[in-house]
Each structure stands twice: as C-alpha cells, then as structure tokens.
C-alpha cells in the first residue's frame, strides 16, 4: 500500500519538478512548485514525520509560495523568457553535467545506502509519535535550542535586510 502511494507521489513530484523547469510561464512554474512541495509533504507523512509535513505546508505553501506568486504578479505579469537566447548552446551543457551529477549521486547511494540498508531487514522503526509535534518540539527546544535561537537571529537579519532594500528613503 505504502509503496504504491510512494510511487504515485514520487512520479507526480518528479513530473511537477520537471514542469517547473520546463514551463516558460513563471506562474505555472510556481504552481508546479507548490505541487512538488505538497508531494514532498506527503512523503514526510509516509516517513512518519507529521510535524514536518505540517510545517512544509504552512511554511512553504503558505508563506514562501505566496511571496513568490506575489512577486511574479507584481514584476512580470503574463509573459517571460521570450526572444533569442544567446547562451543556448551553453545552457545545453547543463544537461550532461546534471546527468553526470545524478549519476554520481546514484553511484554513491548505490554503494552506500542501498548496500547498507537493504540487508538489515527492518530498519529500526521510529518510536511511536517520533514525528509528532511533542518529540520534535522537545528536540527543538532542548537539544537544538542553540540553532533554534540562531534561526531567530537569522530571521531578524532577513527582516532588517528586506527593510533596508525595500524601505522608502527616510525624509
């Protein structure tokens, strides 16, 4: 059952990712990204990471993508990437290079993860409620308190940065 769900979701995720890259219209791209992020959220659920799935939907779909769509609407309504592309031959170089990268990662995973994980029959299952908000929250505020604090500073920096760039001139 899970396997079927995984494959369906995986195919959708890859397809939406490809669509994001291939579609010319950025609005469509943004929507495909939302689809992709949703798929990944489902996968998180499959991996019993409920909290993360939720966060994925709220942060990504809810906040980030809205910003994206907003920016796209403001900046370039409708069309984009028309006209001749002087760099097209170079762009095409990206494909083989990307393929090589994929091949390399696949090779590592094959030699490492696939080898190591497969024979050891059932992986140690997460304890009950491991993906729940309680476990994660405890980790977040106890073991990972320091990075958590750092993220707050990070968000502060982002805030100040955006203000610096977007604020109208004082006076």
């Amino acid at each position: 059952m899970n396997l079927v769900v995984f494959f369906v979701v995986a195919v959708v995720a890859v397809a939406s990712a490809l669509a994001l890259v291939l579609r010319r219209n950025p609005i469509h791209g943004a929507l495909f990204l939302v689809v992709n992020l949703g798929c990944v959220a489902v996968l998180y659920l499959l991996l019993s990471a409920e909290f993360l799935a939720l966060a994925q939907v709220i942060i990504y779909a809810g906040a980030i993508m809205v910003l994206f769509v907003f920016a796209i609407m403001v900046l370039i309504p409708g069309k984009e990437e028309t006209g001749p592309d002087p760099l097209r031959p170079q762009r095409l170089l990206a494909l083989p290079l990307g393929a090589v990268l994929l091949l390399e990662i696949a090779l590592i995973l094959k030699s490492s993860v696939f080898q190591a994980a497969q024979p050891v029959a059932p992986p140690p299952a997460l304890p009950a409620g491991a993906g729940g908000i309680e476990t994660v929250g405890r980790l977040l505020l106890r073991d990972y308190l320091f990075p958590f604090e750092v993220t707050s500073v990070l968000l502060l920096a982002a805030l100040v940065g955006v203000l610096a760039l977007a604020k109208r001139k004082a006076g």
Partner: protein
Amino acid sequence: MDAALIPLLPLLVVGGTALLVIVLDLLPPRDRKGHLGVVALAGVVMALLVSLGLWGREGRAFRGMVVLDNFALFLDVVICYAAALVLLLSTDYLRRNDGERGEYYILVLLSTLGMVLMAAAADLIVIFLALELMSLSLYVLAGFFRGRLAAAEASMKYFLLGAFATGFFIYGIALIYGATGSTALDRIAAATRAGTRDPLLLVGLGLLLVGFGFKISSVPFHMWVPDVYEGAPTSVTAFIATGSKAAGFAALLRVLLSTFKVSQPDWTVLLWVVAVLTMTVGNVVAIAQSNLKRMLAYSSVAHVGYMLIGVVAGGALGAGSVLFYLLVYTFTTAGAFGVILLLERGRREAVDLDDYAGLAGRHPVLALTLALFLLSLIGMPPTAGFAGKFYLFGAAVRSGYIWLAVIAVLNSAVAAYYYLRVVVYMYMRDTEGLPTGPAPSFAGRLALAIALWGIFQLGLLPAPVLDLAQAAVAPLLR
C-alpha cells in the same frame, strides 16, 4: 555571569550590540546615523578585547554545538579587526554616497555575528545557520546603494550564486548525516575513525567543499567575486574580502583538520589542485584588469590560493600560517580597499587605474600608504605579506610539497607585475584631467593607520603572532 555562557561571550557582545543598534536606530535623530557607527564600532572593539581576554580558555556550550578554543578566539580577533576597520571606513563613505542608514550598521553587526559564530561552531547545522546569517546580511549589504544598477546587479549575482552553493552545502550535510547519523563534528569525527571509508561521507565532504569554496572564493567557485567586488559599495567589498573569507576559512579548517582528519590523503590532493588553479587564475586574470576594485578582487582570489597551500601542507605550521596569513591579509586588503574608498575624482569614486596617475605628486602620504599595502600584497619585505608568504611557502616545503611552493613563487613573481603597475601609475605618470583627491575622513585615516601598523607589526615581528596562530590550531590537531 553564568560560567556556561562564557564560551558565548564574544557572540553575546556582538549580538547585543546589534540589538542595541536596532533600538537606537528607531530613536531620533532620523537623518544622521553616524552615532550608530560609533556604537557598532565600540561593540566590535569590545568583542575584540573580550576575545583577547579569553585567550587560553576552553569550553563548550549547548551540548557542544559552540566551542570556545584558541582557534575560535584567534579568528574572532581577525574578524573583529576586519569589522572594526570596515566600520571606521564606512561612516564618512556612506554619507558621501548618500547611503547612510541605520540598517547598514545592523547588518554589518549581524554578519559579524554570523562570522564569529562560524569560527566557534562545532556542529554542521550551526555552521550552516551561521553561514546563512553572514551571507544574507552580506547579500543585502552588497546592494545597499539602491540607486546603483551595478550594486543591484552585484547583490543579485551574489545572492543567486550564493543560494545555489548553499543548495550543494545542505545536500552535503544531508549525505554526511546519512553516513553518520549526526551533524556534530566530534561525532562525525568518531564515525570517520571507526568506520570504513564510506563514499557517502566523502562525497558529503565534497559538497561541503563546494559551499566553502564559494565563501572563500576558490576556483572554480570564484566567478562571482570580481562582479560582486566591483559592484558592491567599497566598504562592503572590503568586508566580504576579509571577514567572510576569514569565517569561511575558519569553518573549512575546523571541518577538514579536526573532523575529516582521517580523509586527509583524499582532500589534500583535491586542495592541491584547487590551490594551484586558484592562485594561477587569480593572478593571470588580474593582469588584464584596469579597474582597481576588480583587480583586487582577482588578487584576493589568488591570495586564497596561497592560503590553501597552508591547508594542504597541514600540521601546526601549515594551518598556523593560514591563520597568520588571514590576519595579514585582513590588514592589507582592508587597507588597500580603504585607500580606494577614500579617493574620489570629481564626484565619483576613483576606481580606474587612470585615476591613480600622478597621485604621488599631490598626495604623497596616501600614495605611499597604498604603495605599502600593494607591496605587502606582493610579499615585499619588511611588510607583513612577506612574512606571511614565507611561512605558507615554507610550510609547503617542509611538508614536501616542493612543486606547490615553486608554483606559488612563480605566481608571486607574476603577481608583482600588476600590483607594481598601480605603483608605477602613482609615481611615474602625470595626471590628466580632473585630479584625484582624498575625501576628508578622520575615521578613514585612522583605519588606514591601524592597517599600516598591522602590516609593519606583523612584518617586522611576526614570530610572536605565528606562535599564537600555531597555538590556535593546536586544538584542531589533537
């Protein structure tokens, strides 16, 4: 004060100052923000003094995610020097360019916080967050002069490429986590010592190197450097060139030397090649530049190549000379950019080689100052650049990397050409058109004086500082 917080002291000072400046920014006066610069400077100097005062103490906090050791403290000093020089240079520069806003100081402090944190982080996720904190602030600072297309372009390029490199970096963290089940550096180290050579781990390291390579701007991840250095406000350029590089090297050294010590044979070969490429590309392309900021950008790439030699050489001498060189490089580069930043021709910043023609005739002291910084970049004694290069190349020779040292010496020989060209312009050309002159700035001159003191102090009496640098890397090599 709670003893557990002592390892965080430098961080707290910088972070606290940042918060203070945020609050002060909201208070009047609204149109003049110079006092914020003074506050920020005081904070950075305080952090510098605190770091010096903590020298020799060791500690960890937050489950070992942050460490206090001499390594972190040495780099704190380097970073705080960089930040202090940049702040001194900034105040009048911002006012001249009509860009004086409180956010500038806040962002400089926040990115300094990120840098200091990178030096002290002992967990990949903390390194990642610190790196992002530093980078995000710098992306914005690079485009701080909103009215200038070049600044906006610099900011955009820096941001897109930085985020791209971050993607690789985080994937590397994921792979390393997959191999070891942890992001804590000591746990990873334990895993590398215990286990067989896991390709997952090695490749994870490779992807981390992409991220670090971007920050320290080694070939082939250096492409953004010239464009960003040219387009960004010069004070920010100086900060990117010194502070962020020091922070990048800090994390790189900690990860490579202490965590991935076992894989040393693997990454040494890699860095050997990268070092050669980096210094050669930097020096060769710098020859063809006529914009001084761009030339210094390529030169900074070349200097990263020199520093990588020390990483390759390894050991207390190799790593210690990298730290020593970082300090030297900070004084020298901040000084060189500082002179550029002070000079203007007409109402425009003097960045073209032609602007420097005949400078020695009218402003002998300033010209001599720039010439000294350039001589230090060349590695002419008795400036600090010589001592720094001597240690680096000497460490390479010591460790048996004779060819690396030979290539480096050859590179330095080539490099002398483009640095001296500026000197020739200043001393052996006559001005045509509008004269170039310095803008009045006491703080700027103070910064240059400090930088000059630095290159002579380190050039004439390098040994004590090298001893400190070697003591600083000792915790990593245990």
